[in-house]
């Protein structure tokens, strides 16, 4: 079930009514809702999730009780989860890449057998949650909880498909107060859902055709410089509005049930350095990679060459996590190089935090982000090469075919930056709120608007969320 589907428009209110109507057994109500949510897409895969939850709970139990060989146990358990992920997501990619390399080297015509398995929705997200749970038990940061608590953590439907990647420690407080209705949180949830749908329908889906058309042109082998920039900027905006819109809906849905899910984005397009960007973009993934890959490798408290190696490994894995394709790996690699260079320079040059330097840093960072997203979006290196080469001024022409589209993209970008900047200040627009019967009427009219946007957001199979594929 997708967030932008008719099923979800019916499912969410129904699940909400049942959840708040049952006086007890709220965990069970949430679990039923979560499995209905997933099983509406695939019953076998819903059963597989249940199996993985049971297995990982048993792993956690074993780790919590073990006094010897705990490291070996942890490695085995993590390997199991990664093998499941690899089987579904990376097996065909690995064997195809191997065959391509072997055929090129030895002049063979080997056509390898492929599994062609359907990728279970959200597998990359819940696998990382399992690993976090096991590692934290191993470290002693997390006591083993009851099966039902772990179960609802792992299967929780608002975050099941595309995150944010949750931490058990942050999830537990909501479980403790489960069943206590918080009107302010529910209002915030509705606001987040409305905002998320608005980002998706009014912005991301409007930018998508511009980006798609541009990348399609690039696949023809040549494009103009202006068009390349327009395309890259359109995708830079689209992916933010799409993914942050999805996250808003996920967090808003969770809030309706009394759960506070941490933010995943913190004005990423205001980042003034590459490191700063990863503190603001897909925060749940970047912090997961930091805590479960980068720091275990040694983090920054090791000799510089080892730090650079750690950065490269972490970012390459981060790229590969996004998809079984070489352009994702290259995207991660590009970020690894960028962060490594920044790490080296930071050790040698101490720059004051003045406004002009911050602006320069912002411009460089966002240029890097825009260029890196070209690698992320382009399905082949050839297309990425055409785009990047045109952006570098080697396009077929300098001008734009459509000034109007550039104004739209530029205006949207300026609007986003201004709203992000306003969010950094204490200034808030003063909206006079009506009193008496006018106030519920205003809420009613707003709800009607959200329902109309939601109806337009319902998928016609053309506009699914980008991050569902991961």
């Amino acid at each position: 079930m997708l967030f932008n589907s008719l099923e979800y428009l019916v499912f969410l209110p129904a699940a909400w009514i049942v959840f708040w109507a049952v006086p007890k057994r709220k965990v069970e109500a949430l679990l039923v809702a979560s499995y209905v949510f997933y099983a509406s897409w695939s019953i076998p895969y819903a059963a597989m999730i249940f199996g993985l939850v049971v297995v990982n709970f048993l792993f956690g139990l074993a780790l919590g009780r073990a006094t010897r060989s705990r490291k070996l146990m942890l490695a085995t358990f993590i390997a199991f989860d990664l093998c499941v992920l690899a089987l579904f997501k990376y097996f065909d990619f690995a064997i195809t890449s191997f065959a391509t390399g072997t055929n090129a080297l030895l002049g063979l015509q080997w056509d390898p057998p492929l599994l062609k398995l359907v990728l279970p929705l959200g597998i990359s997200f819940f696998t990382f949650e399992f690993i976090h749970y096991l590692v934290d038990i191993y470290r002693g940061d997390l006591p083993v909880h009851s099966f039902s608590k772990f179960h609802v953590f792992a299967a929780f439907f608002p975050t099941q498909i595309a995150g944010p990647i949750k931490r058990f420690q942050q999830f537990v407080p909501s479980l403790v107060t489960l069943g206590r209705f918080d009107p302010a949180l529910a209002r915030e949830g509705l606001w987040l859902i409305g905002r998320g749908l608005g980002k998706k329908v009014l912005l991301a889906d409007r930018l998508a055709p511009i980006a798609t058309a541009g990348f399609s042109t690039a696949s023809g082998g040549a494009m103009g410089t202006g068009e390349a920039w327009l395309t890259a900027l359109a995708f830079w905006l689209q992916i933010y509005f799409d993914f942050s819109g999805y996250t808003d809906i996920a967090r808003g849905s969770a809030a309706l049930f009394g759960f506070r899910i941490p933010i995943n984005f913190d004005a990423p397009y205001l980042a003034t350095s590459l490191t700063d960007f990863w503190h603001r973009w897909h925060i749940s993934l970047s912090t997961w990679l930091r805590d479960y890959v980068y720091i275990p490798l040694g983090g920054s408290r090791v000799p510089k060459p080892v730090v650079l190696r750690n950065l490269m490994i972490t970012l390459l894995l981060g790229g590969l996590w996004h998809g079984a394709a070489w352009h994702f790996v290259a995207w991660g690699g590009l970020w690894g190089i960028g962060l490594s260079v920044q790490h080296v320079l930071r050790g040698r040059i101490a720059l004051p935090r003045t406004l002009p330097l911050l602006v320069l840093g912002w411009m460089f960072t966002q240029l890097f982000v825009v260029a890196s997203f070209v690698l992320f979006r382009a399905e082949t290196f050839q297309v990425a090469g055409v785009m990047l080469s045109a952006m570098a001024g080697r396009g077929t022409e300098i001008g734009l075919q459509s000034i109007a589209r550039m104004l739209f993209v530029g205006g949207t970008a300026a609007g986003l930056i201004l709203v992000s900047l306003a969010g950094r200040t204490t200034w808030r627009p003063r909206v006079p709120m009506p009193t008496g019967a006018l106030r519920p009427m205003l809420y009613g009219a707003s709800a009607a608007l959200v329902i109309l946007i939601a109806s337009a957001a319902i998928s016609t199979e053309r506009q699914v969320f980008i991050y569902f594929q991961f």
Partner: protein
Amino acid sequence: MLWAHRGSIAIGLVTCLVVLVAVELAVFRSGLFLSHVGFASPVSPIAKLALAERAPDARLLFVGDSTVLADVAPAVVTQTCDCGEGFNGAFAAANARTTLAMTRRLLGILHPRLVVVDAAPWLVDTSGQFTGDLFAREVLSPADLYALGEPVDAVGMVDKEVGSVWTAYGQRFLVKEWLQSLVPGQRYDEAKRGLYVPPGSATSPAALAAAMEHYFPDPTAQVAPSAPGATALGALIEELRGRGISVAVLLPPFHPAVREHAGPFLDRADAAIQQFLSGYGVSVIDCRGAVAATDFRDLAHLTEQGAAKHSLCVGEQIRTLDAASALQ
């Protein structure tokens, strides 16, 4: 806690309902939305049907799949043949059965004297399977799809029912199209009367090879004039003639790379199509020689300039057929 606010909740719910009903009646059911809304692209049947409402003067109707959608510019045809206004009612990924259903829907809106329908090589491919994709679900009812071998689509049936009661939901694709058309430079120019050439280009060797796999996955496939697609086209021809409307068949052009990959298949398909058409005595419009490799946007579709060249030829052939009174 909720009970304590029942008065406010009731006012809010009633307001919400009133706003939704007002929008439904004033914007959607009144026809205001359909008659005034702009589109970003006319690739779907529902968008085409809405556009057709604005072209009641069309005397030439072009139907079929994306080869017609991107290759026939009605305005150019009209200028050349001087035979009345035209409308391109083709949509992406159409097949003979969905074309039949779409033509029936279009004839409820338009009153053409000539319908031109495409006959692509896959029409006579005996292994061709009907697939009920999104666009098929827009023109065919769940019952029709089931009759064509598609599994029962319970969600689709609910979707259709909800859409018929709540028009704002039923026309959500048009709402999205309208939103897209508000983006500067994205509004579809309705003077093109249904022609749509997707932006961009895909003529690199890799893109052509990928498209070849898509359009001609099996160059050894069997062809026959009695293939299911041809049978559906035959039914369309009979039905149109029964209504007193002339019919002509258009053979769509393909990038020369197709011949290198699937030349024998094209020849066999051509022969089967000719055999099929001779059985119906239907006029053929063949402008495949009017375009060159540089006129293609991709393997199966022309660029705007290519479409203009092709349409010029189509207009001339219609004029010739008209002059010879060869259209039946």
